[in-house]
């Protein structure tokens, strides 16, 4: 089977266990990265499917990678037809803004303005592409690495920063950890810190839509590592049993903090094939190729809206940065992996596509990037004026007692008083 970690056997000499195996990544620090085990397929090779195709038609997509862009920025095959020129421009802008936001917040963290941040460096195409396939009224259930959704939806970055700074204008009033946003009005479900829990919730939301004869769909996201949780398996089962209109997106970025996707079984079978084993149609998609991401999600969304139920989509990508600002990946993976990832960088690839097709000039893209930088700098200045929790200008203390229940119970009211409010 293809995947990331090809090394099936433990090589550690001290291991005495009879066949006991602990997956070992292809490269630890100081070793040479090896991506040869990944089945990269070829752009344009897989045939375009009909949105209402029978489940069996998806079989070639379980192990072969759906790709549109080659590594020179050229688009291939019929899937490309599902993406318009406007889509590409909108997506590039949202991806560039996402990256500029991340860069700004990483800097803010180093400056002590927030104790914590998580970037999605190298994974921008996934959240942005999927969002362009949704409509207002749909609901996405993201993890902490889908901030791209918010840029594709047009959320004001200052408001996101207010949440990160847990300040007086934080829409969540300081209740939640930085980056665990909630934006109901943008179809963005409140992010949980507990991995995997939202996978079956997204399925349930979609079941409700089907029950009410609605055409709204849900989008679920999960990391490769978190698929090990029981919730992933149960969500897949429910989606299949009830034919829930939900896009089930596994973001396979190869790493879960310090362990590889092999700990979630990725070297034995693809996530796409495993979702298919629940009877779901499933696709394996180049997650660093915006055109492939958007095409796959658009077709899947169309299928779900037509009442044909869920589609499982595995996005192959690479976590370029540290897990979070509390993490140091040089301790557990080879530095060279980042540049060695065979599917490149999603923004570089889309930029190149825009240039080779003449959709945008290098100068226009340059302006886009400069504008994004300025936008984020200015947003940060405004957010900082609203306070920083670490400078003692956090959200209203008394707000802590509100929202535990719809109505504050007597005991809590007593405690609030005891706390001096």
């Amino acid at each position, binding site marked *: 089977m293809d995947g990331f970690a090809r090394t099936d056997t*433990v090589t*550690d000499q*001290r*291991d*005495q*266990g009879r066949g*006991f195996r*602990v*997956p*070992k990544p292809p490269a*630890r620090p100081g070793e040479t990265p090896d991506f040869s085990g990944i089945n990269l397929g070829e752009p344009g090779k897989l045939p375009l499917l009909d949105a209402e195709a029978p489940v069996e038609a998806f079989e070639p997509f379980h192990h072969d990678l759906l790709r549109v862009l080659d590594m020179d920025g050229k688009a291939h095959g019929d899937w490309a037809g599902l993406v318009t020129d406007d889509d590409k421009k909108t997506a590039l802008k949202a991806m560039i803004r996402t990256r500029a936001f991340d860069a700004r917040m990483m800097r803010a963290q180093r400056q002590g303005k927030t*104790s*914590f941040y998580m970037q999605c460096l190298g994974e921008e195409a996934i959240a942005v592409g999927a969002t362009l396939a949704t409509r207002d009224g749909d609901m996405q259930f993201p993890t902490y690495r889908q901030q791209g959704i918010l840029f594709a939806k047009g959320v004001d970055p200052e408001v996101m920063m207010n949440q990160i700074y*847990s*300040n007086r204008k*934080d829409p969540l*009033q*300081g*209740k*939640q*950890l*930085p980056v*665990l946003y909630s934006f109901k009005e943008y179809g963005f479900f409140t992010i*949980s*810190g*507990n*991995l*995997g829990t939202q996978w079956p919730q997204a399925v349930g939301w979609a079941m409700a839509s089907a029950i009410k004869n609605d055409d709204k769909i849900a989008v679920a996201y999960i990391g490769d*590592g*978190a698929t*090990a*949780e*029981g*919730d992933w398996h149960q969500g897949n089962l429910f989606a299949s049993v009830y034919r829930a209109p939900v896009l089930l997106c596994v973001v396979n970025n190869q790493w*879960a*903090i*310090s*362990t590889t996707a092999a*700990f*979630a*079984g990725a070297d034995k079978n693809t996530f796409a094939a495993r979702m298919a084993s629940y009877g779901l149609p499933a696709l394996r998609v180049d997650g660093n190729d915006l055109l492939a991401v958007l095409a796959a999600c658009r077709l899947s969304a169309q299928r779900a809206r037509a009442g044909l139920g869920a589609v499982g989509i595995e996005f192959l990508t690479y976590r370029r940065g540290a897990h979070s600002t*509390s*993490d140091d990946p040089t*301790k*557990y993976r080879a530095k060279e992996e980042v540049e060695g990832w065979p599917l490149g960088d999603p923004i570089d690839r889309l930029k190149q596509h825009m240039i080779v097709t003449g959709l945008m000039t290098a100068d226009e893209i340059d302006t886009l990037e400069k504008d994004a930088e300025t936008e984020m700098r200015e947003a940060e200045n405004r957010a900082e004026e609203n306070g920083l*929790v670490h400078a003692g200008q*956090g*959200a209203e*203390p008394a*707000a*802590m*007692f509100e929202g*535990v229940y719809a109505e504050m119970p007597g*005991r*809590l009211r007593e*405690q*609030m008083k005891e*706390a001096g409010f």
Partner: protein
Amino acid sequence: MSETLSNTKTMNMIEAIRDAHDVAMERDDDVVVFGEDAGYFGGVFRCTAGLQEKYGTSRCFDAPIAESGIVGAGIGMAAYGLKPVIEIQFADYITPAYDQISQEAARIRYRSNGQFTCPIVIRTPTGGGIYGGQTHSQSPEAIFTHVTGLKVLIPSNPYDAKGLLIAAIEDPDPVIILEPKRLYNGPFEGYHDRALKGWKDHEDGQVPEGYYTVEIGKAKTVRAGNAVTVLCYGNMVHVCQAAQEEAGVDAEIIDLRSLLPLDLEAIETSVKKTGRCVIVHEATKTCGYGAELMALVQERCFYHLEAPITRVTGWDTPYPHAQEWTYFPGPTRVAAALKKVVEAK
């Protein structure tokens, strides 16, 4: 407590825990250590660092992100005869394993009438004080102390962390160890705006090398006094000492260390002497472990009490991010309670 070596070394809590694993693994081949990121990387808090390198991947290894699977597999290994020591990355993420812990690990000895046992240890970082927000700050001890068949420990310093972990590994029954993560790198008295203190200058940061144990079920009096008994554990041991100084009352501060089993004798003796009792924990108040302590003190010491027993706890809200220091029961709140209880007529 039994000590076979007297050479001591300054250790923070992380080093002491790592050392306890090392000592136990060295002494007993059946001890295996695993958890999310606990193998190659040595744990996100580094408590298992170096063990895989020293003992190999069959004795210390990474696990899938599947807490229920981790504990379930641990139970099976224990049934075979191994001594699994499991790390759950944060106590907030232990709940997927609650079924395996409360219905399985805790019940196997009883339901098989002793044919099968479950000598596993589950270590997990607990408590707040690190701006971790709701899902890196909770104190879930009471959901375990409510389960008979489990033992529940919570060390407040490197010395106890090492001695209790070795004792837990040797214990024939399942033991949960909640490690206050705010104490990993130094004692924390609840003054978040003051400089971090290390364990270097703290008596309990001086840890014997090699093997020793701290007896499970024994509390430790960290300050003797006559005016009021303070029952606390974890982070609150340090907060209560600071509060005692703030309040200037002659408090007897007891670090329970072991919540299940509980050192009732130490509690009873102290409360009968002082006639007053303040109970302090970080967890939410309603049905928290303090409720059990209060009931026990009332049952056993009622006729010696001169004032109502008082609890200082986290508020009954989820653990907030921005309002961490309003939530966290710091020395000011504890000091006020101490004064009130001591002055009550």
